[in-house]
């Protein structure tokens, strides 16, 4: 297991390195730079702009930039923002809680609702309930989340003259305010997840419900409720876990629109703005962080598998 984990970590490191190289290569191709942006409206001369470029190291060839960055990174220095001069690590760490809260809550909502819908649909396979639930799930899949968010937001404002609190507060500071604030984004983000979880739950439930061991459990005289909730559901979790883990990795990277819409100070906004601002240190660092998150999520999923499935724990492949 340890060897396996090390190998995965090794792969993870390779992936992160490749990501870094990609990002540096891409940045080379991107038009415009932070200097032009910062110096607009200032009537500055070209020479001065070039001096500033040199200061940021933007005039070096890209491989020198990459090499310098790697050298610094190895020493734990991931750079500072071209704009605020803050350490990118601080920038990222300050914003990650919001994104994680949003992502986790959305996932939890999606997971809980999705599981319920999926289980009910599987248990009532072929019935009206099943049909309705699947329809419902697909309907949610086919509306972009920002549209859901806008409809909810506008609807509440029009009919109830209510809107979420404007200023983001952490859950520890003011729980009610936080809950109100995060509710709509979570719903918007969660519904899509719900639909895919429901789909997957249904199909893997059906798969387990048709399996031999479920027949054994039924033959023991166990109540259908228990059959479904205990045996079938638990056996479906592997697939659902995979989905959830990977959704987490993507949800975290994909909250840009929602974060902007609800003025949530998360990483989505940070990275989006950094790309637009050509704030390369921030872009690189965020991307690396995300890649790391992706890699870690995948390793975590593996560990979770092992937790759920004793066969994996003891190193046997999935059946």
């Amino acid at each position, binding site marked *: 297991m340890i060897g396996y984990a090390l190998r995965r970590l090794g792969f993870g490191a390779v992936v992160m390195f490749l990501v870094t190289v990609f990002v540096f290569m891409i940045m080379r191709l*991107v*038009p*415009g*730079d*932070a200097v*032009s*942006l*910062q*110096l*607009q*409206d*200032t*009537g*500055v*001369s*070209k020479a*001065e*702009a070039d001096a*500033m470029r040199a200061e940021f190291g933007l005039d070096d060839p890209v491989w020198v930039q990459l090499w310098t960055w790697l050298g610094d990174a190895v020493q734990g220095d991931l750079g500072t923002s071209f*704009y*605020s*001069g803050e350490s990118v690590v601080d*920038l990222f760490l*300050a*914003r990650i809680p919001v994104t994680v809260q949003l992502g986790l809550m959305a996932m939890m909502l999606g997971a809980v609702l999705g599981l319920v819908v999926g289980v009910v649909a599987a248990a009532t396979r072929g019935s009206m309930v099943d049909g309705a639930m699947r329809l419902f799930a697909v309907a949610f899949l086919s509306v972009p989340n920002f549209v859901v968010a*806008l409809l909810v*937001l*506008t609807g*509440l*404002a*029009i009919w109830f*003259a*209510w*809107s*979420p*609190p*404007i*200023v*983001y507060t952490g859950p520890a500071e003011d729980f009610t305010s936080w809950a109100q604030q995060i509710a709509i984004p979570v719903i918007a983000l969660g519904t899509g997840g719900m639909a895919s979880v429901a789909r997957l739950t249904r199909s893997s439930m059906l798969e387990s419900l048709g399996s031999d061991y479920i027949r054994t459990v039924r033959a023991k005289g166990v109540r259908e409720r228990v059959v479904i909730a205990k045996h079938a559901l638990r056996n479906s979790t592997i697939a659902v876990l995979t989905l959830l883990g990977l959704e987490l990795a993507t949800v975290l990277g994909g909250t840009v629109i929602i974060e*902007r*819409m*609800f*003025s949530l*100070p998360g990483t989505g*906004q*940070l990275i989006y*703005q950094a790309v*637009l*601002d*050509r704030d390369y240190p921030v872009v690189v660092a965020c991307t690396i962080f995300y890649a790391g998150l992706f890699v870690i999520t995948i390793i975590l999923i593996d560990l979770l598998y092992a937790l759920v499935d004793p066969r994996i724990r003891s190193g046997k492949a999935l059946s």
Partner: protein
Amino acid sequence: GGGGGTGGSTDSGAAAPVGAPKPGGTAVLQLPSEITNGLNPLISSDPTLNTLLSGSVYGKLIDIKVGPNVKAWELEPDLAESWEVAKDGKSYTFKLRKDVRWHNIAPVNGRAFVADDVVATFEALKKATRVHQWMIEPVTSIEAPDEHTVVFKLSKPYAPMLDYLAYHFNMILPREGVEGKFDLATQAIGTGPFMLDKHTPDVEWVFKKNPDYYIKGKPYVDVIKRPIMTDIAAVTAALRSGRLDSGTTSDQNVAKQLGEQGLKVAETPGAPVSFFINPKVEPFDDLKVRQAVAQAIDWVGMGENIRGKFNLTSLVRPDTSAAALTRDEVLKLRPYDPENAKKLLAEAGLPNGFSTKLMVQRVDDEDVREAQWMQEDLAKVGIKMELEMVDPATGIDRRRKHDFPMAKALRGVHLPDQVWRDFEKESLENYTSVDDAELYELLAQSRAEQDEDKRNEIYRKMQTRMETEIVQVLYPIQKFDYGITGARVQGLYESPIYHGRRLADMWLNES
């Protein structure tokens, strides 16, 4: 540049105040974006920074007047009680107020404001070559003969000097800040009505009342919160629910809707819509083609339909200068005349039109709609124009590299002299490579001309020349933004520039 999109003011309420001003309360005013570059005014030209600090935290020597009856650009004293311009125009003397104290924050600790601070500020500004030095370029020395007098010596007459000093960039900093005793990038200690209290990155800025403000009894409100809100739907919802006191939108439909629902809507003059035609790209090297383009587009219709409230303008803004051409004057120079446009094209040897591209740097949704409007109008005279959407960084880069046939952006300039600076030969912002000796001659004259009316006359000539002979840069309309305020906000007047001092006059009518 593009970032200066929301131009003038972000918050404003035009209606006459209800009842008498009363102190206290917390006002929540939308801030459309976060600062990008730290708080140091010597380094940053970020409009958001000016929105936040200029006038509200830092005072200026001179300010512009706002209020219920002020229509035009008019200077008024701020830290300088009075000023005097030497006959030759080469020396400016300012008498400073004696009752001004810095905010009571370490390391400045509420000491008195003195002439030395002004000297320190402007000396630093002259050295801060990267940013605003150009405004005071002819200034050769700044001296403080006594604690409350400052003298600016210039190398040549420089008529726009006072306007620039009132401009939002020229905040007066304490010497401690300039000398690095505190970090100007993270701290702001000024003389303004409000003190910076708290900043949560990407979330909000909080200001509290400066109890030692030199105007007794002001500011009225205790706290101003500036939550960062980008999305108009969220702003609208928050305005409706009363969580937000003031917000801005560029969308007339939204404004109308909110107005109907009992919110106060103030039409606030904003940045000019800027349209660039690059004569280095064929067929725009032919003046006739450029004229054809200018005349083929129904600018008035565009303003009416897309912006709602707008000014038909030439290059100079009516709200910052009396030199701006009026609507009729503009219409005469640049009529909507598709027939004539076709004729001009035919004369240029392009009777069947041609294909081209418009680089659109989007600031608000209306920009995109305007681009589509222009597209359709040009199509009618046979010019097939494709839209090329770019992000700000790409936009600024390509404009500076003259890498576009036509471009549309929002160029956030306010003052007449500032407008012309862009077209100087060496200017980085001379996107369309304007190179017109006559124009430059006029510009030099204007700077030397002390008399305002005469100077305005020169500006008019320059606008006419730009509209008829050059036609490389058009600021065809000035857009308006819609400041929307809740019922309780009183005394918040619009301003063409970032003008935080007016917040001192704002009060809340808790009803």
